[in-house]
């Protein structure tokens, strides 16, 4: 019997996406250490990476980075296939859908701040819909919606500003991938 080796050919683009996803993963692990007043209210720092990747390398790369981060993040936190994982996933999928739409806005007028705000609202919408239809089918949830919306606006704006600041820095040239 001969040992068989499976060899996957990884292109430089794959390596680059993996590096970006690892960076996003680092931010989400960092963020898990920040105490939150309400489950679901958190800064979503890893989305800064998604925004930068979207601006520099397009939507497909951003989707890869975002979904890899959700998957690997859940493995690191130990909640793979637990409710928290599906909440992240639905949030990420809705955010990506919002980004797919908002990136067609004229770039002269709309920057990462707009994309970030739209993605943040989409994220919380996806999560709340999943919570409502799967975990807590109770209308009392409605009382929390304004709190989540406020958090989405604040953190969406801040993350967008950070991404915008990074993208405008002269020393942060895109990597040739």
């Amino acid at each position: 019997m001969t040992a068989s080796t499976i060899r996957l050919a990884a292109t430089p683009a794959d390596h680059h996406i993996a590096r970006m996803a690892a960076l996003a993963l680092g931010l989400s692990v960092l963020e898990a250490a920040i105490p939150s007043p309400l489950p679901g209210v958190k800064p979503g720092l890893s989305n800064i990476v998604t925004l930068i990747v979207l601006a520099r390398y397009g939507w497909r790369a951003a989707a890869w980075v975002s979904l890899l981060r959700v998957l690997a993040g859940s493995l690191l936190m130990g909640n793979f296939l637990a409710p928290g994982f599906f909440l992240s996933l639905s949030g990420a999928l809705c955010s990506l859908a919002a980004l797919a739409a908002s990136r067609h806005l004229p770039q002269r007028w709309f920057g990462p701040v707009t994309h970030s705000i739209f993605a943040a609202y989409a994220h919380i919408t996806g999560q709340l819909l999943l919570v409502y239809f799967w975990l807590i089918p109770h209308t009392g949830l409605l009382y929390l919606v304004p709190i989540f919306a406020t958090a989405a606006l604040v953190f969406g704006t801040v993350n967008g500003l950070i991404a915008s600041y990074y993208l405008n820095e002269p020393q942060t040239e895109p990597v040739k991938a």
Partner: protein
Amino acid sequence: MSPVEHIKPGDWISILLGLLFTAWLATTAWHGGAADTAIIRSGGKIFREVPLSRDQIIEVPGPLGLSQIAIHNRQARIAADPSPRQYCVRQGWLKQSGEISICLPNQVSVELNGGGKRYDSLNY
């Protein structure tokens, strides 16, 4: 560099839209729903459904005895109850649709209901 330089004109519109949307959500979710009926339950079954427009006192039988529910000035409360800790009595007046007061030991509850089902406005 100040952070304002990183915000493009359209971004201000997005922030403004976000503020308006959030304010609208807060007003609909927190101040909506004038109640018009009180649903009184006993042992998990609906005992009576009464309009809030008429002031009255209703006596509801439970395993421990009679609970008294008072309707007054479009509000409802449990005025007296044989339960030992009196949580539902101390909860006071219920004013908005969706509010509920429950006496677990005597298996009596009163819930305010009004307008349509609240989650019909659950759109983002």
